[in-house]
């Protein structure tokens, strides 16, 4: 990769990373929807469309993530991947009517800081 390209490539892959974490969040949302009737029974597993959608979105996000790891350093990729927690909070507030208390924001903030420290330290 040439030196002058790398800057824009990194910016692009950061954007792609944000999208990938969003896809992972949607996957988690579907998994939660599918968890309601989840049982370890082959018939039920085949009928659980939400579960299948959730796994599909999850796998999609993992594939994008793997591809992006070629362009991004790990110290950047790890904190970016934890943007997914923020996505999930907004999604579960909008679609699952979960109440996001102040303590949850504090917790997610601390986790974001912690992951950043872990990858830079």
């Amino acid at each position, binding site marked *: 990769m040439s030196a002058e390209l790398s800057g824009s490539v990194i910016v692009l892959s950061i954007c792609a990373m944000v999208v990938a974490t969003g896809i992972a*969040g949607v996957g*988690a*949302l579907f*998994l*939660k929807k*599918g*968890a*309601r009737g*989840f049982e*370890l029974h082959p018939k039920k597993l085949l009928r659980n469309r939400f*579960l299948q959608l959730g*796994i599909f979105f999850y796998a999609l996000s993992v594939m994008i993530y793997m591809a992006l790891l070629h362009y991004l350093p790990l110290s950047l990729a*790890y904190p970016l991947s*934890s943007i*997914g*927690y923020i996505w*999930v*909070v907004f*999604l*579960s*507030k909008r679609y*699952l*009517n*979960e*109440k*996001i*208390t102040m*303590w*949850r924001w*504090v*917790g*997610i*903030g*601390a*986790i*974001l*800081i*912690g*992951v*950043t*420290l*872990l*990858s*830079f*330290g």
Partner: protein
Amino acid sequence: MSRATQRRNESERLVGRSARLTSGYAEKREVRPPGAQSVRAVRAERAGSPGARTGLLNRDGLTRHAANRRTANLPAANRHVANRKSASVAAKTSTSRVAMLLVAVCTLLTATAQVLMKISMAGDVSFSSLLRWQLLLGGVLYAIATVLLMFALKRGELSVLYPIVSLGFIWVTLGSVFLLHESLPILRWLGIACIIVGIIALGHDSTRIITRTPGGKSGGRVRGVRYRGTPVRGSRSRDLQDSRTKRMGVRL
């Protein structure tokens, strides 16, 4: 002018003045013409509630149906708490500790699986490398982790459980220290501490249902109900019915 007329004029003047003084308030107040619907019904009709005319409204001007729809995500046993003050329910949270523990075990499994898969991919990548035992074991661990995650999500909220997945970062870091004998700088220790503090904060108020009562003695106070659905004090016969529906298997 007689004394009586004089007195009447005087009192009219006073009333007029007081009316002028209070007119600012009177304009703000909602004046109901005789024979109109109650304020509650008007409010319900504005909200588009279908039971507005039949009068089957609870104290918040909502039909039972509308109230239940608002709290549909709650376990049935706890729904009555939220329905009783449906307009004032500020928070409805319930995530069992078992669910959080399950997610923690799940992250340990996925971290192990990731390491195994990485080992299996080392060296030349060919078709035969897909059949190495490390990769197969990693896949099996992933499957077990997914099943555990589903059982955890069954009894918990996504916004609490999903961030717990960040424990995986801690497992990987500790693994690299104890298995690969890498050094751990102070900043990384701080990062681990931060993640743990964050998870504790997430779990802090997540095991109970919170309703805020707007007025009265308990204004703004937070009342807690455990996830299992023991009714709060002052419960009525409706509570019994709800616990019965719970036994019939209606739950989150």
